[in-house]
């Protein structure tokens, strides 16, 4: 008879892995993301079906309570994810701002060269000719 937490863990693990495969097939997730979530699903499944691994976790942290070991692991994992997402967001913000800037400048340049062809290169050429 399986314990209830094993069943919940297995269901969670299966859901993540199936969803991961589904999104990969739909091309909505890429290689690195697929591998990451597959590993997360597999680890949850493994810990749910092999309770002995939890004992290893308590040994590793030197705690007596299993729940403490799980909470600490979860918290550290959460912080790591938060750090990574913060970095990614900041990087994306920079890229987005640069894109906005370049598009606006390019649109303006194009508009100016259409409405006033003398404004850009032609004017420079005239100055050189002088």
């Amino acid at each position, binding site marked *: 008879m399986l314990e209830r937490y094993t069943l919940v863990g297995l269901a969670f693990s299966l859901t993540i892995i199936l969803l991961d495969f589904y999104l990969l097939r739909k091309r909505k997730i890429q290689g690195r993301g697929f591998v990451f979530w597959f590993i997360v699903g597999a680890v949850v499944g493994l810990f749910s079906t092999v309770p002995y691994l939890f004992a290893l976790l308590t040994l590793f942290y030197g705690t007596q309570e299993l729940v403490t070991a799980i909470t600490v692991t979860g918290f550290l994992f959460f912080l790591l994810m938060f750090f990574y997402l913060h970095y990614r967001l*900041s*990087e994306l*913000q*920079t890229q987005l*701002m*640069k894109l*906005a*800037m*370049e*598009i*606006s*400048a390019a*649109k*303006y*340049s194009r508009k*100016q060269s259409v409405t006033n062809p003398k*404004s*850009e290169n032609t004017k*420079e050429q005239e*100055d050189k000719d*002088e």
Partner: protein
Amino acid sequence: MSPKVLIMIPAYNEEATVGEVVKSTMALFPEFDVVVIDDGSDDKTVENAKEAGANVVSLPFHCGGSVAIQTGYCIATNFGYDYVVKVDGDGQHKPEDVPRLLDPLFRNEADITVGSRYLTVENNDDSAVKTGGRFFSSTLVSMLRKMEITDITSGMRAWSRKAIGVLLPIYMERKFIEDSVFWVIETLLASKLGLRMKEVSITVLPRRHGKSKSFSKPKMLMYPLRLITVLLEEAITRK
């Protein structure tokens, strides 16, 4: 041959003042090009600027003043301007001060000129908190970079083609810069890269409409901390 000068006016929701700023600038300097850089305004800033006769560059959404200024640098580079002057769209900067900023550049005495409110005492109309913040940042940067700057946060500035040619590629490489520390970072960069900076005295008028976007109260409170992190970042990342 007269030099090509661009006056850029970044504006975000400045419908009440931008038209007047554009008109007075164009009337004073008909030989210069005036461009309003609309930072994703959701009022009639664009319409009013166009009506007043300015060319308008529109950012697709509100990106912040630092991005609007860098867009101005891009345009100056694309169109081969010799000098660029920045005047705020909120009507606080007097277009009459533009020649003071341009003179040292024309005479090749500087690569960047900064309009300072503190070179003469009578210009100082700001609150004690704002003045204290500016004094703190200007003194700190002056001491660290061994330079003399009294108004590091002043947004009324002018650049030579050389200065923009040096600064723009660096901005394109580095991460997004928040508005509140943009001028501090630019001053540090200019000093590191050997660009010559000069301050000239200007008068800044009190804001008649709306609120300052770069220095809201929470930002002002966090400013000393933000400044110290910027200085640390610059020290750590310096080559």
